[in-house]
């Protein structure tokens, strides 16, 4: 279990701060933004990003008419939209919380911890369509580890982390795990006679504590 830490708390804070500024810049302010996190850790990231964006928008000169309203954020569960439900042990869904204003005509920023195959995001796009019709959908991820299986790319990336498929990337966040860190570990060496690397990555016992690296 040689887990190597690749991002510390300060790195994560810096990455989120930069992403918050990039979202504000691309969106020309915070108007019409809705942040939706993908459970489990995407939800906490969305909440933290929303707080940062709200704070930066309030301190900038563009908000001449007082404080802008807080950027709405929520959670988008994609379990029911996955394409691998028949291939894995049953997953328990998490609650979906769409902010009161809805997402029609808004710019939705999807937030997840790790971008891997892109299949989770594909599911999320289907899920969004059932909740309304946003003006645009963007994607922000803390870690992009490559190995895409679908034509999906992130708009905002905290850290590009080229990895082997046998490696596992763990994202730990203060609200969920008590600590901010991103670690990487090689499962090919200590996996107990793992028959194939795909299984090692999506071991059901670990899915709660690791990235949504589902393939």
């Amino acid at each position, binding site marked *: 279990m040689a887990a190597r830490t690749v991002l510390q708390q300060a790195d994560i804070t810096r990455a989120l701060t930069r992403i918050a500024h990039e979202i504000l810049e691309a969106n020309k302010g915070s108007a019409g933004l809705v942040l939706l996190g993908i459970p489990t850790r995407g939800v906490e990231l969305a909440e933290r990003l929303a707080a940062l964006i709200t704070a930066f928008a309030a301190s900038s000169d563009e908000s001449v008419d007082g404080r802008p309203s807080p950027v709405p954020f929520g959670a988008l569960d994609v379990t029911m939209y996955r394409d691998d439900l028949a291939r894995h042990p049953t997953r328990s869904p998490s609650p*979906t919380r769409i902010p009161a204003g809805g997402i029609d005509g808004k710019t939705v920023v999807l937030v997840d911890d790790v971008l891997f195959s892109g299949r989770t995001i594909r599911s999320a796009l289907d899920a969004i369509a*059932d*909740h309304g019709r946003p003006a645009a959908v963007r994607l922000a991820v803390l870690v992009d580890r490559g190995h895409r299986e679908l034509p999906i790319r992130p708009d905002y990336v905290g850290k590009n982390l080229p990895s082997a498929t046998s490696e596992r990337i763990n994202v730990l966040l203060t609200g969920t795990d008590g600590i901010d860190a991103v670690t990487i570990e090689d499962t090919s060496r200590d996996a107990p006679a793992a028959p194939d690397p795909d299984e090692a990555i999506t071991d059901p016992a670990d899915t709660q504590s690791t990235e949504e690296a589902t393939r």
Partner: protein
Amino acid sequence: MKHLLSTRDLDRDTAIQLLDIAEDMAATQQREVKKLPTLRGKTVVNLFFEDSTRTRISFEAAAKRLSADVINFSAKGSSVSKGESLQDTAQTLEAIGADVIVIRHGSSGAPKVLAESGWIAASVLNAGDGTHEHPTQALLDAFTLRRRIHGDASRGAALDGITVLIVGDILHSRVARSNVWLLSTLGAEVTLVGPPTLIPHGIDGWPVTVAFDLDAAIADTDPDAVMMLRVQTERMHDAYFPSTREYASLWGLTAARFAALPERAVVMHPGPMNRGFEIASVAADSARSTVREQVANGVSTRMAALYLTATGGAA
């Protein structure tokens, strides 16, 4: 979970997981687009050897909301009336491509036979078998009760310390049996009330208290919920009680008894109701009655049951 055959062998964690998934399913039913793509390409067969309105429609709605293809099969007007066996019928359905078979059968244990005989590879959901069990009804009852008691904080909660009276025809009621096991697994205290002739033999082994006097039981247990059962006259070939009027006055939820219930107590009934017999209209139509909620929650609960049995492959 490959099959859902009874609530007796459902452990507490699985039961709560099922109810929590039902909460998620209920949330999707508030949306503009109610349909989920979850079971796209799967075929659900409703195999009904006994009459049913709400259970069959509820399962059909649940399967369709999950994008499954639904085939309805009722024994009347089928080859079953020509003498086809359960095995042949089931294998025919599988040959058609059934992934899930929802079965209601007049014989207790028929779903278990179907699930464990090795005749078919499909998942089996028990939608009521004889006087044995009706697990999805108990799950939707528990779901309804949990929502009434815990409100928005329902997720993850159980029913510890809740007192429930189940009143009436216990002998013929698979709903009562499923509820006894599920509610006690979830921590509720269950008291069964009914005429001695309608209390089954061998009830000593059940995790319940038995009473024969409804007024005394209401006063003693101070119940959080009263579940009235339908008197199943179609299964009664003996005189179990002298007359319907006597039954109504002794074991029916009359207006006077309804008024004597604690303010917080909810009134449940699995339907179909015999108004004026086991339940008075004033109780059935009051704000404390959950009868229509139970029907609505039935769809969410069955969606959860279909999801859990139809997904999750080999591992």
